[in-house]
């Protein structure tokens, strides 16, 4: 069992006193546990949270976002807008890849071209859809111009997204198909080993441009069961755990040697209507359901107080979220009235779909329970994920429970795909909302370079969406990170992939 250790480690140990190594190991190793393994560490090959949380440590993006989701310099130390569709970037000098090569503008071009190349078949390609990578103009090693196909105001957010992490051309070519198992980036930690399905081993990259990270080694463990993750934290099998189970929040909070950090995230859960089928083509019905549902029980019973009831389509942490939206109050009489207006005084029967995910199933059950009070008879159907996505994309559904994460932390990402009529189906708009006003406002938002103007468009569109009620906004997510009390300087990031550069351990 122990034999599957790292060969390098053995080699390295030879000239050091083993006892010392033991000690050092113990002190300088940070173990993070999350609920899934990363399928690959090629940032372009996956677009999922477990992978991003690791690739975030290995790769860096041109721009960065701080804990308030505001854009900060990343590998680019400066940038300017030349015109609507052209940006000029200036890179930091002396940034080293883990293989020793220095970062140049060529690497940026290579990275973006690879991401957009059809052969790469990257699930994250759409993030840079608007970028014309082939025509990136390299001015010198540290300066280049980035052309866009069309004006795209939120581009900075996109350039900070983890799929755009900068790769080294030589390393990619060297490892070919195995790059995902041998990632090479510029980040503060470099890849060292991987027990697939179990643990990823990272080591501090001593030549990082910001200096040395706080810990010598960083391990990401895969502990799927929520309860077990907490147990691992309690028993010292992990120093930090992500996604503390709602039921364990109190336990972690109250334990003396453990700390809990909570932070709103960028996700919104919703119950959507298929607006192309009866009776949900009638706004009154959608509104009635909105009035009939109260989401306090969801937060309370499903998430144990983690997160809050949603009052609009965007999580408050998202740039551009409308903070003053009131949503719908809980008013059964009004709901019944609206239903009667729409001709459904006796209610109706409806199928509510969800995928097999505990919280969504619970939400479905709560919705079922609450809607029975206004005579709507809900039949829950739990679908397998693939089938669920496919069938909801094709509009075979009536009502469904789903969520959306504004991964870039910007309103455009949080609204365009799910509410624009160009995005019907698989692209994200599974309610089939088609509202010209909404479309227009969303398009304007993309092109408005004036912050105030842009925010105004989004305010307006969020109000319309609330009024149109394609969704019942159920829940805004909150992430909870548990850690041992000796873990210091952890900063939590709303996007979920936290930078671990600063962390030190004071055991």
């Amino acid at each position, binding site marked *: 069992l122990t034999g599957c250790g790292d060969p390098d480690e053995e080699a390295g140990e030879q000239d050091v006193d083993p006892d010392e190594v033991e000690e050092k190991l113990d002190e300088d190793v940070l173990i993070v546990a999350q609920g899934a393994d990363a*399928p690959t560490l090629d940032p372009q090959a996956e677009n999922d949270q477990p992978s991003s949380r690791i690739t975030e440590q290995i790769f860096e993006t041109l721009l960065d976002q701080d804990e308030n989701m505001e854009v900060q310099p990343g590998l680019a130390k400066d940038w300017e807008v030349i015109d609507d569709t052209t940006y000029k970037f200036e890179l930091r000098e002396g940034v080293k890849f883990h293989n020793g090569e220095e970062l140049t503008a060529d690497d940026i071009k290579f990275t973006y071209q690879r991401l957009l190349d059809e052969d790469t*078949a990257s699930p994250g390609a759409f993030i840079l859809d608007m970028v014309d990578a082939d025509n990136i103009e390299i001015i010198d090693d540290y300066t280049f111009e980035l052309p866009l196909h069309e004006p795209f105001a939120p581009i900075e957010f996109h350039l900070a997204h983890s799929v755009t992490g900068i790769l080294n051309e030589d390393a990619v070519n060297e490892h070919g198909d195995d790059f995902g198992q041998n990632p090479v980036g510029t980040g503060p930690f470099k890849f060292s080993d991987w027990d697939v*399905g*179990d643990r990823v081993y990272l080591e501090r990259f001593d030549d990082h441009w910001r200096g040395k990270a706080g810990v010598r080694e960083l391990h990401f463990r895969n502990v799927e*069961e929520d309860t*077990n993750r907490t*147990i691992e934290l309690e028993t010292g099998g992990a120093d930090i755990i992500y996604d503390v189970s709602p039921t364990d929040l109190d336990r972690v909070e109250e334990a003396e040697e453990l700390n809990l950090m909570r932070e709103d995230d960028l996700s919104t859960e919703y119950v959507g209507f298929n607006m192309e089928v009866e009776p949900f083509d009638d706004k009154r019905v959608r509104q009635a359901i909105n009035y009939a549902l109260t989401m306090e029980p969801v937060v309370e019973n499903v998430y144990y107080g983690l997160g809050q009831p949603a009052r609009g389509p965007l999580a408050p942490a998202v740039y551009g979220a409308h903070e003053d939206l009131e949503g719908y109050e809980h008013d059964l009489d009004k709901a019944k009235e609206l239903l009667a207006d729409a001709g459904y005084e006796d209610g109706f029967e409806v199928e509510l779909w969800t995928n097999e995910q505990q919280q969504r199933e619970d939400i479905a059950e709560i919705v079922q329970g609450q809607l029975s009070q206004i005579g709507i008879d809900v039949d829950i159907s739990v679908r397998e994920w*693939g089938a669920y996505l496919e069938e909801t994309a094709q509009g075979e559904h009536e009502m469904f429970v789903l969520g959306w994460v504004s991964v870039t932390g910007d309103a455009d990402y949080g609204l365009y795909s799910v509410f624009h009529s160009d995005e019907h189906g698989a692209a994200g708009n599974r309610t089939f909302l088609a509202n010209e006003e909404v479309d227009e406002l969303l398009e304007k938002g993309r092109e408005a370079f004036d912050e105030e103007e842009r925010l105004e468009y989004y305010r307006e569109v969020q109000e319309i969406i609330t009024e149109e009620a394609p969704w019942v906004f159920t829940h805004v997510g909150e992430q909870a990170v548990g850690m041992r009390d000796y873990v210091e300087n952890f900063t939590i990031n709303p996007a979920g992939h936290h930078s671990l550069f600063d962390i030190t351990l004071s055991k």
Partner: protein
Amino acid sequence: MHKYIFKRLLQLIPVLIGVVFIVFTITYITPGDPATILLGEQAPEEQVKQLRRQMGLHLPFGAQFFNYLSDVLQGDLGYSLTSGRPVTVEILERFPNTFILSTGAVILAVLIGIPVGIISATRQYSKIDNISMLGALLGVSLPNFWQGMMAILLFSVWLPIFPSSGFDTWQHAVLPIVTLGTSSAALITRMTRSSMLEVLRQDYIRTARAKGLDERTVVIKHALKNALIPVITVIGLQFGFLLGGAVLTERIFSIAGLGRLIVDSIREQNFTVVQGGVLFIAVIFSLVNLLVDILYAYLDPRIKAQYK
């Protein structure tokens, strides 16, 4: 004997082709499209189509199946849709864990099950018999994942003796092996007992007793070998079952095993891994069965005589 083994190996071929066919069909009719999965939900239609063509997914079922089958026959199980790595590599990476887990569980089960079964049978209806039979019944009655969770609460939380997840050191292996082993042990105990009872009724046991042999010799030398055949069948089936069926235990204890790989792949619609994984387990399972049959021959010369 060699000829027999060879013949059996030959007979495996149609079975395995059948397995390939069934798994392939199941994954084929499963809704969800590998290309979409690979590219993510937000990928543009064009790109998806392109990829489908590239993967040969536009072909009719028969053609796809034969393409796959001919690849398999050449030892190529394809590439994982999520990680892009060869399926064979992914499987072989996971297999040692699963193997240690199931072998450990089977060994534990045999070490408990056979002696307890023998004692129960030789003292039929005694207190020991009743207690062990009740234990065995409970062992098969309690869902495995529940037992696993209880084991974690008991031995990782309340009495922190063993780690609750991961699979790095021998300590990690203890709880999952015990969890899996107990239910198998329960089965083996029951089988051993009934098989022993049956054998102890036989005339040759009476003959052995009439020779004046002491009871130990009668039970161990004369009865056990005869009673072992059905027990070995159960052990073989159990082992095969554990290889692919330890999914729940692997999940509870966060062990990167084969069963979990396949289940995760099913959920991610990572079809190539599902197909390869199931095929791999089927091969191992069939080999275990063959091994069991060969073991029969060593236990029972009559069976050996039939293997031609």
